């Protein structure tokens, strides 16, 4: 039974007297293999953030070189935060992330519970369920936009036509999904894509339930609901948290679906899309950086919680 890997295998080495071959290595020899990766990460991921921070205090619009580049204090932040479009993109990012994560966690839990029981062809069903997650995100966004949601030849409206025809009507409803329900369109595509992810994590959680506890509960004649409520759900809690937080990290950063399905129109611009827009369409580097810093601050708040959860999993392995 395995849930989580175990560092006890590594921890004891610190206390045990190291064997002759290993003892002589100094701290630096131990650190050496780590350094290339650390330095690489520092240069590629940390230094750009420092640059972003600096540029966020500079007035710098690439389309207006005549204005020059100079320090402007917090005016980029003021401009960005007083922009109603940017504020609406903050709100939509929260709505999108919460909706997608909560719905796909719920669906993922149902699917994981279905797949937890043995049945004929379980491996095939599991493989089928993973498929949405393995379609290239922009391909899946194109699939939703053109093949499913298109008002004229999309599958959804095609099915409506078919159903209405069965009942002898030639006048089926043919909603223009993306125009009439832009947010729902993006959310549906992302929920379809992320449910398999949640299902996989929760299924791993279900399969790591202690078998003896299930046995005992069975002996005591617990109902399936009682088993679920008092045994499965508490055990799954940390997996639900992990799935929710990892899902949030990825969905907050989503760009492909918004860019493809609605191109950020009708209130569906989320933060990555807005920043891309300020940077790439408006070419206002100062404001794009200020927006970036605001997003980083928001992410740090979320990440602090996420790290706490991961770190609780991490400590659990030691038990």
């Amino acid at each position, binding site marked *: 039974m395995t849930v989580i*890997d175990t560092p006890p295998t590594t921890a004891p080495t610190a206390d045990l007297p190291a064997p002759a071959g290993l003892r002589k290595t100094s701290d630096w020899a131990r650190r050496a293999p780590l350094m290339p990766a650390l330095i690489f990460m520092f240069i590629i991921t940390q230094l750009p953030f420092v640059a972003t921070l600096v540029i966020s205090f500079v007035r710098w619009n690439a389309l207006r070189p005549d204005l020059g580049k100079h320090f402007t204090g917090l005016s980029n932040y003021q401009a960005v935060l007083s922009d109603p479009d940017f504020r609406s993109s903050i709100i939509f990012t929260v709505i999108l992330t919460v909706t997608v994560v909560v719905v796909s966690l719920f669906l993922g839990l149902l699917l994981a519970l279905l797949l937890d029981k043995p049945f004929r062809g379980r491996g095939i069903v599991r493989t089928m369920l993973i498929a949405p997650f393995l379609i290239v995100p922009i391909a899946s966004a194109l699939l939703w936009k053109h*093949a*499913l949601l298109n008002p004229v030849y999309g599958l959804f409206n095609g099915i409506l036509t078919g159903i209405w025809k069965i009942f002898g009507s030639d006048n089926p409803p043919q909603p223009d999904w993306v125009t009439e329900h832009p947010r729902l369109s993006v959310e549906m595509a992302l929920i*379809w894509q992320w449910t398999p992810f949640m299902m996989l994590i929760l299924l791993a959680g279900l399969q790591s339930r202690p078998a003896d506890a299930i046995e005992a509960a069975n002996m005591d004649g617990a109902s399936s609901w009682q088993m679920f409520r008092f045994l499965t759900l508490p055990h799954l809690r940390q997996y639900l948290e992990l799935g929710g937080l990892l899902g949030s990290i990825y969905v*907050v950063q989503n760009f492909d679906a918004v*860019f493809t399905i609605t191109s950020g129109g009708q209130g569906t611009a989320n933060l990555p899309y807005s920043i891309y827009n300020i940077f790439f369409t408006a070419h206002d580097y100062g404001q794009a950086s200020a927006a970036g810093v605001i997003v980083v601050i928001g992410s740090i708040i979320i990440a602090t919680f996420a790290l706490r959860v991961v770190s609780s999993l991490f400590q659990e392995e030691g038990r």
Partner: protein
Amino acid sequence: MSTQAVPAAPAQPSASAASPGHNAPARKRSVWGLVAWVVGLLFVFPALWMVFLSFHSESDAASNPPKFTAPLTLAGYRDFFNSGQSPWPSLANSATASVCSTVLVLLLAIPAAYALSIRPVKKWTDVMFFFLSTKMLPAVAGLLPIYLIAKNAHLLDNVWLLVVIYASMNLPIAVWMMRSFLAEVPVEMLEAAAIDGARLPTIMTRIIAPVAMPGIAATSLICFIFSWNELLFAKVLTAVVAQTSPVFLTGFITSQGLFLAKVCAAATIISLPVLVAGFAAQDKLVQGLSLGAVK
């Protein structure tokens, strides 16, 4: 040891008789199995629909209500490969960026994971969390400086820039995954081998490699998938020469008359490597996606 239930399916029928669910009659079980099949088919249907449409002629693909019995054709694929801009350069760029960044990630991650598990540095958990925290900062915030640096260094529209960027995106995942695999290397055996006077190369090939190889395979597949899928950075940092397949697909965002079969063919072709890699690694997928926290 990760025990996923994947290919165990054929072995299940015999297990169902002996399993602890003696109070759940077989009929109830098969009803739930049926439900799972229905839900699974429903879920995969859009993906199958995409593949199905890609083998239709444009006029059949765009019919409303949908035609389920239309004749199959390869016209969509021919159209995708032969008409307009050729997709081959972008497929080649995607392959270069994904494969090379994965190799770079492994070169950096394996020694790092060694220093975090087999012979851990002091405060190795802090290092692990540093790697993880870089994954939690939104990449978009670093986009502008990277663009400016690349512009000044004349690295825009260069696939090697993407190799470096993708390596930095995937390195935290790879370090976490590889560490969780290397943590399973039996330390007593390492010590015994060292006492017996075995040299480092022998220890590497005889003791560490057997445990690490499945981990390396799984890590590579996950890194490959993420690099292949990436759009935002590729869109901003490449243009004509180095554009990757997802950037190529952005050409299909606006409708262009009858083109549904072609879009579906394009989406299918470009997703194919990820589907293959993902199905091959499906029992390790969870571990990679949860950064090695869940096995």
